[in-house]
């Protein structure tokens, strides 16, 4: 006598959880407050608190988390008994398309300073970026849209810009780009994702 029928039943998936769209990258001095929850998705709330928007990018912003793990083994078992994290890096990268002195400095370590001289008699107005290898740490936040259409914010309290920067001056092939690499230097438990999920009740 045959037993009960064998059923194959796959779980449902949620297509609305599949997200896409650009992220808005802000940087600021370490310790700069983030906007209130209500205003996490409002660009002017960020800039009003001292956050700087990096502007247009060549191919959006990429977040890369790369843990290096170490297997712990025993002779009696061929598979590891545990896998522990030995090192971990979190990088935020993009290629800045807007060539401003601020962005040049940002990509080149954020250690330089910009002096502004106004136009005067016999003196053209000018801004001079003086570079430095004394790289400065900063905060960064990446604001995207979640499946509800609200803001989802990755907040990293301390990063340093320390990537290789190569800029090509081409006649027409492409715009001048400044690759930006922000390496996280704070403890991992200081990094937060904030996801707005509902409108305030009053």
């Amino acid at each position, binding site marked *: 006598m045959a037993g009960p029928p064998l059923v194959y039943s796959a779980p449902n998936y949620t297509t609305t959880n599949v997200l896409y769209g650009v992220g808005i990258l802000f940087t600021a*001095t370490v310790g*700069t*407050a983030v906007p209130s929850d209500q205003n996490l998705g409002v660009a002017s709330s960020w800039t009003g608190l001292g956050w700087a928007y990096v502007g247009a990018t060549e191919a959006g912003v990429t977040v890369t988390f790369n843990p290096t793990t170490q297997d712990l083994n025993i002779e009696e078992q061929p598979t590891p008994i545990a896998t522990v994290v030995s090192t971990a890096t979190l990088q935020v990268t993009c290629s800045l398309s807007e060539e401003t002195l*601020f962005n040049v*400095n940002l990509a080149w370590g954020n250690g330089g300073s910009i002096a502004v001289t*106004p136009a005067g008699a016999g*003196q053209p107005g000018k801004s001079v970026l*003086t570079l430095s290898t004394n790289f*400065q740490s900063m905060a960064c936040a990446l604001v995207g849209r979640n499946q509800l259409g609200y803001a989802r914010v990755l907040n990293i*309290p301390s990063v340093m810009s320390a990537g290789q920067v190569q800029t090509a001056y081409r006649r027409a092939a492409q715009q001048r780009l400044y690759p930006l690499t922000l390496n996280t230097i704070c403890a991992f438990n200081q990094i937060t994702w904030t996801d707005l999920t509902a409108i305030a009740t009053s």
Partner: protein
Amino acid sequence: MTVPSDAVTEVIPAVPAADEPAPEPEEDLSAKAADLETQLAEVRAAARSGDVIRLKVEDPHVGFALGHINVGTDYTEVPVSAVAAIMEGAANSGVTITQEEV
């Protein structure tokens, strides 16, 4: 031994008497946790920001920026922790920075 069907049973009132205190509403733990997280974030931000001092740029310059910190011709508050870097950067750029006397 079985209990007779007509045994006396305790009757529990469905509604508390008017003179009894109303039961405490259950605490919303998730809301409390959110409040505490907000307070912790504020304390951490305050701890990071620390003290500030006021600097300004002298002629012939009208502005000086180090990273995300801008100093103008009016006194501008900057974190104490950034002053050394600002002064070094200003010296390298030939910019004169004045600190407000207190």
